[in-house]
């Protein structure tokens, strides 16, 4: 009687072991293993310290010329002078506009970069500085491949392929957030300070010298 029970138990254990092995094989490749939520992706797309006194959330579209202008002439000096010095926490939000044919794809690729690597900033610089090229051909992957190391680019490709749905969902989550805040153009910047209501800046490129004066005055008031 005991022997037959032992047989049943060992058979069940073997079945459970085989089932778990099969389930393990069904899992995606290691590169695409980590499924990030939209919130986790947002964290990976943010630059600086979350403890900074001011948070700037920028809703942008990689194919929009005004966003290119804003990124190259305002965001980059802002990163150097305010984000890297701990004064500002910069949060990127995707807001691809339907008028641009490749902006949804670009947002997905950049989310894949954020999910797979720590090279989000380098990828952003590449896309914005070569916007005219990929904007006419749609060859975003090639543009990124020219800017990222091959090993990282392979990880990005794997994530982009395996988690396209999740990446698109993350982009749509940003778009929904933007719409809930009445964002109707890009770039749109929100200034957030603890204990103060969120302030939307007028939609459009923000000149760095004026933003600098504004941020300095906000920092002085604290």
């Amino acid at each position: 009687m005991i022997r037959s029970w032992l047989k049943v138990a060992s058979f069940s254990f073997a079945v459970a072991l085989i089932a778990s092995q099969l389930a393990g094989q069904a899992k995606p490749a290691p590169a695409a293993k980590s499924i990030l939520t939209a919130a986790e992706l947002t964290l990976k797309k943010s630059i600086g310290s979350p403890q900074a006194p001011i948070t700037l959330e920028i809703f942008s579209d990689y194919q929009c010329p005004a966003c290119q202008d804003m990124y190259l002439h305002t965001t980059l000096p802002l990163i150097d002078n305010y984000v890297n010095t701990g004064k500002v926490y910069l949060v990127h939000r995707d807001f691809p506009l339907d008028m641009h044919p490749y902006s949804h794809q670009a947002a997905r690729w950049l989310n894949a970069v954020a999910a797979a690597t720590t090279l989000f900033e380098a990828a952003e610089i590449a896309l914005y500085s070569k916007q005219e090229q990929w904007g006419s051909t749609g060859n975003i992957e090639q543009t990124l491949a020219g800017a990222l190391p091959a090993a990282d680019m392979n990880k990005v490709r794997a994530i982009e392929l395996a988690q396209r749905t999740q990446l698109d969902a993350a982009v749509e989550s940003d778009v929904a957030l933007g719409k809930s805040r009445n964002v109707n153009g890009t770039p749109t910047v929100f200034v957030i300070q603890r204990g103060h209501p969120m302030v939307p800046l007028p939609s459009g490129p923000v000149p760095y010298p004026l933003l600098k004066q504004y941020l300095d005055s906000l920092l002085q008031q604290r």
Partner: protein
Amino acid sequence: MVEAAPAALSSSAPSASRRRYTTIALLIARIALGAIFVYAAYTKLHYAGAWHLHDYDFIFAFGITSYQMLSLQNALWLARVLPWLEVALGVLLIGGIALRWAGSAATALLLIFMTALARAWMLRLEITCGCFGNQSESPGRELLLDGVLLLLAVSVTAGAFLARCNSRMPNPTRHVTK
């Protein structure tokens, strides 16, 4: 002169009522125009659910710079001054104080706004109008609205100047009674 007297007397009743209607219409126009100026200032000082008396100038200046007409410092100066100028004009118009000057200033201001909007439209600049807060972004619609406001402002100014002229002119009925 004596023959003209009955005609003048007979036409005095309709002209008096017309004058009353005109006075009422101009009163409504100047109150509406004044209220719109005060509202325009309010949207620049109070937005996103709070008063921004300490930083309204920066926020409004971001909109002004999108017109690409002024230097950064001039845009900031204009952003600092304009809402209070709008409040002052609005109060003067509503209160009927210094109406000729307030009307003229409102007309001039609206002409400047319209020129800036038309220029931005012609150059196809992606502007943030800034006319009624930071969320108003349609130059075409704002241009139309400014056109209507300009009509009101011109009417109020013309009415104020005409009223001044009429008060200085001798009253014709006095000659008749004499």
